[in-house]
């Protein structure tokens, strides 16, 4: 398998996640789309690690997974708070920080 096919696949996965973030308005679905994008980048890094024959890409994937775990913990706590205050998950509703 030529290594480019992995790059193409992760590019497509990233674009799907990006379109999801732009189109959907549900906070939890937005979060899941961000996870899709993170995973697409992870796949690129792992493929690049194999292409170069070195460990650094895999180490980066490891750190990305750690940061994603921390991000999900804080983000979901924020979403729970938001839902209890506003009663909705629609990200268009909270406008306190708008100009």
């Amino acid at each position, binding site marked *: 398998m030529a290594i*480019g096919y992995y790059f193409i696949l992760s590019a497509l996965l990233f674009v799907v996640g990006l379109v999801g973030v732009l189109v959907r308005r549900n906070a*939890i679905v937005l979060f*899941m789309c961000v996870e899709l994008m993170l995973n697409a980048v992870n796949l690129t890094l792992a493929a690049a690690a194999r292409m170069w024959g070195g460990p650094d890409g895999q180490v980066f994937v490891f750190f990305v997974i750690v940061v994603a775990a921390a991000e999900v*913990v804080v983000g979901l706590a924020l979403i729970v708070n938001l839902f209890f205050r506003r009663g909705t998950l629609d990200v268009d509703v909270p*406008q306190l920080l708008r100009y």
Partner: protein
Amino acid sequence: MGLTVVANALLGGGDQLTAEVVLFWVFAVLALGSALAVVTMRNIVHGALMLVINLLAIAGLYLTLESSFLSIIQVLVYAGAIMVLFLFVIMLLGVNRDDLLIARSLRTRVLAIVAGVALSGALLLAFVGPYTTSDSICGPDATETVAGDGTVRCIGLAERLGDDTSGVAFLGRQLFTRYTFPFELSALLLTVATIGAVILARRRDLEPEDLDPEGPDSDGPDSDGPERSGRDEQER
């Protein structure tokens, strides 16, 4: 002519059907299909389950990339811990109804899809060609990454891994020598995230100022109902 191009692409740039090619296509179709399902599913719980399939497919792709340690981590951390957290929050909030929240204006939707097509086109333009020829198939004979004619070779991890086929020692040695500082920082980050989540998840807090306490429903600031005040009293 067209058929040979397609056949060449299906075989991943090579000329024989190896196990890696078969596994790649199986997992690639699974990953892309479930990613599309995450974006389009009406029910959030179904979307979350589709995301689990996506994460498992990517774990399978890590296996074909000779990164079995990452594959295990992916299953444990993502498909295990993170997705359980997602489903827990969905169930806790009781939002598993069929309400498709989607951008209201048509212009936003059309522009989003145009941006997606443009970005994927640009990325495909970069990758098709130099990375997809038969030179880019990972093998032991490649030592230089960039070949003379501009195509990119793939060195592969087989030689570096040697007997350590899982890659744990390979990765661990780097983590505890070259990447010690980021490793310790990530421990700190996880601690901070845990403390932050505990503080954020407490429910006794000030009300936001842009909510009118004497609003249309005169429940006022205590709109969470008796359940919440009962909990506050228990804490005291």
